[in-house]
């Protein structure tokens, strides 16, 4: 079975290639079969491999497909490495990706560029699979850049709108900032180890460097730069809300299965280096904590349904960074998996709503959809419960509670990080249920046009089930004590040791988290449903509105970067429109042109003049031969 490893990324690539070359000439049904089928078979292969992996439980599967190149002793191969960490990621990518593909067949059914859409989606899934299965960092970087390219292609999918093209370029350029940092980190890794093979680096790093070695810290920070760019964390988060310009299934794919979780994967994969650099670990946690708070506040004030979800993704990835930063590796990856389920679910529900309301995305013009879109309502409610971490029933509660608990109980725990996480959970449940109440309750404001069919309903129901039961594979110590997930990851990611006498407080902290989550929902209920005058009085207050505007603009980061970077750059470009260095070369061409004009005047086309030229020349030569 293990020799089928290469099929998992190869199938989506093959699908993309077929659709790029022939897509516009094939009938729609065939395009659907290729586009959805390639990812579907890939998911089936993943399932088979997963079953075998679980029953055999080897350390890892490894397969060299071919040797990429060999330059001066540096010979990275196109080789795939499958261990527990990769297994979790490819499971989420192929399965959630497959469900999103199925959903897209209806969502994009009337789009003229149907084949182009599926070609890009397949390429996206394929690149992400290469990223998480690569056995060396160069191949990982290839997938990393492939994902960036596909995000550009898909965010700007409806390229006739100018704003979409702008959003696509923004996503590409901002993630490029992080990618450059990461590339420099890879160069330094190669300089130290002479290879980019991940396993070799992981085993040798401990021998080469002491804890806090300067080189290790620098490399960890550079890798963190790459992760921050791709995962939309502070200070490179501004591209993610604008990435909503793409079709909704694309948003679901970017936010749940691919792209933004690449940063989480990179940090988890290179955890050895991060453990050698406690400063960088702390930075990961602090970035996560600040990001989750800032993005949560920004999500509170958005009116665009998809933008709320975008900010909530930034915030939830903040939680993953928080977990990774204190060394709770498996808790971070667990939250990634659960987040993938409920965030894909929420985005797909949002897509169904947007489709039903004729591409209306403003929540102020929604409302009363509870009765009209019952399936979407129930599944959205389940996703929202998971996002808001409603205690006991939702998967999100177990994953988030684990992160919060380890902030205090873990060896690197910190009360401030815990409080930030708790406050973030409170904000999360407010904005989540604000979304639910504004969209599904109250009176109906827009006519419902399109009722979702099976292709939309089925992915929603499957994801909703996963969002409910997904949490039961990892339950807290005092409550069931199921550790299937962390046991599965324990050979790859070191387990976090818990301060021993802390265990008796665990139930208190869980109670606190539950109360925080429920009170957030209650506040949202008060403001947005029960007491409309409370909301009106908020709207009258001058300071509240100023804060609202500030948060609505995402803490003014766009404006800040605009004044600090974009404007000076555009100004410089304008001043230096005729490139200074270029002027030397323009001078050369001007000179050549002048000579050309001069000599072309001598070509009169008159035979007499040519004869004259010959005679004068002959006389000159004669004179020279006679007198010299």
């Amino acid at each position, binding site marked *: 079975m293990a020799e089928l490893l290469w099929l998992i990324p190869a199938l989506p690539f093959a699908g993309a290639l077929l659709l790029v070359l022939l897509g516009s000439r094939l009938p729609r049904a065939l395009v659907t079969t290729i586009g959805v089928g390639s990812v579907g078979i890939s998911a089936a292969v993943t399932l088979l491999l997963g079953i075998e992996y679980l029953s055999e439980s080897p350390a890892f599967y490894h397969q060299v497909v071919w040797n990429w190149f060999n330059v001066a002793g540096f010979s990275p191969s196109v080789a795939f490495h499958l261990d527990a960490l990769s297994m979790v990621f490819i499971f989420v990518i192929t399965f959630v990706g497959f469900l999103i593909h199925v959903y897209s067949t209806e969502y994009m059914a009337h789009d003229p560029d149907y084949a182009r859409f599926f070609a890009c989606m397949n390429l996206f899934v394929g690149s992400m699979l290469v990223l998480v299965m690569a056995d060396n960092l160069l191949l990982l970087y290839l997938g990393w850049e492939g994902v960036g390219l596909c995000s550009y292609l898909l965010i700007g999918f409806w390229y006739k709108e100018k704003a979409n093209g702008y959003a696509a370029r923004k996503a590409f350029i901002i993630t490029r900032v992080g990618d450059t940092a990461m590339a420099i980190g890879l160069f330094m890794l190669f300089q130290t180890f002479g290879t980019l093979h991940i396993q070799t680096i992981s085993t040798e790093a401990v021998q080469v460097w002491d804890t806090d070695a300067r080189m290790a810290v620098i490399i960890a920070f550079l890798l963190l730069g790459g992760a921050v760019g791709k995962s939309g964390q502070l200070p490179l988060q501004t591209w993610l809300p604008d990435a909503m310009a793409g079709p909704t299934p694309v948003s679901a794919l970017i936010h749940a299965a691919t792209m933004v979780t690449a940063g989480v994967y990179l940090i988890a994969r290179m955890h050895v280096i991060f453990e050698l650099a406690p400063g960088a670990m702390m930075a990961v946690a602090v970035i996560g904590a600040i990001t989750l708070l800032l993005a949560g506040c920004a999500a509170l004030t958005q009116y665009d349904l998809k933008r709320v979800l975008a900010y909530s993704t930034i915030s939830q990835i903040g939680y993953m960074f928080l977990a990774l930063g204190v060394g709770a590796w498996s808790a971070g990856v667990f939250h990634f998996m659960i987040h993938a389920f409920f965030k894909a679910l929420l985005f797909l529900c949002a897509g169904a709503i947007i489709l039903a309301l004729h591409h209306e995305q403003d929540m102020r013009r929604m409302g009363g959809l509870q009765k009209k879109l019952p399936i979407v309502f129930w599944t959205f409610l389940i996703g929202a419960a998971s996002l808001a971490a409603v205690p006991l029933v939702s998967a999100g509660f177990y994953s988030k509670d684990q992160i919060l608990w380890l902030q205090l109980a873990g060896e690197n725990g910190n009360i401030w990080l815990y409080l930030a996480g708790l406050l973030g959970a409170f904000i999360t449940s407010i904005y989540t249920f604000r979304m639910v109440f504004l969209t599904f309750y109250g009176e109906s404001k827009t006519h419902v046009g399109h009722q979702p069919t099976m292709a939309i309903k089925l992915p929603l129901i499957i994801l909703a089930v996963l969002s409910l039961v997904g949490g039961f594979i990892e339950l807290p110590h005092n409550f069931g004590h199921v550790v299937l997930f962390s046991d599965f990851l324990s050979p790859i990611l070191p387990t976090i040791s818990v301060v021993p006498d802390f265990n008796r407080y665990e139930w208190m902290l869980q109670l606190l988290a539950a109360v925080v989550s429920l009170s957030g929902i209650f506040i949202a209920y008060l403001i947005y449903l029960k007491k409309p005058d409370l909301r009106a009085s908020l709207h009258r207050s001058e300071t509240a509105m100023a804060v609202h505007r500030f948060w609505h603009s995402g803490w003014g980061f766009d404006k800040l970067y605009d004044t600090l970077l974009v404007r000076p750059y555009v100004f410089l470009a304008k001043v230096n429109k005729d490139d200074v260095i270029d002027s030397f070369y323009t001078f050369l061409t001007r000179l050549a042109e002048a000579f050309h004009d001069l*000599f*072309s*005047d*001598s*070509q*009169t*086309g*008159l*035979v*007499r003049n040519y*004869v*004259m030229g010959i*005679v004068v020349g002959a006389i000159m030569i004669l004179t020279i031969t006679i007198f010299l």
Partner: protein
Amino acid sequence: MSSIPMEAGLLLAGILFVIGMVSVMIRRNVIFMLISVEIMLNAAGLAFIVAGSHWAQPDGQIMFIFILTMAAAEVSVGLALILQLYHHLKTLDSDAANFMKG
């Protein structure tokens, strides 16, 4: 047979050559230009004959025969070209054929 001095022969050849050359330069009618070129060729031929008789060698006369043959060929090609020129431009003015002006 009273011999003509070589200088006189060469002077005549030189004068003829210059006349031919100047008229190629100042004439605009293509036929006259062709005639002028013939004059220049004959001047060169005369110089060969004079030199051959001065050194009592047959080479000069052989060269003259060559020049004569070449001139015949040249005239036939030249006349054909003139015919084509006239056919296209309806004139024999060489200045009218200045299509190659840069």
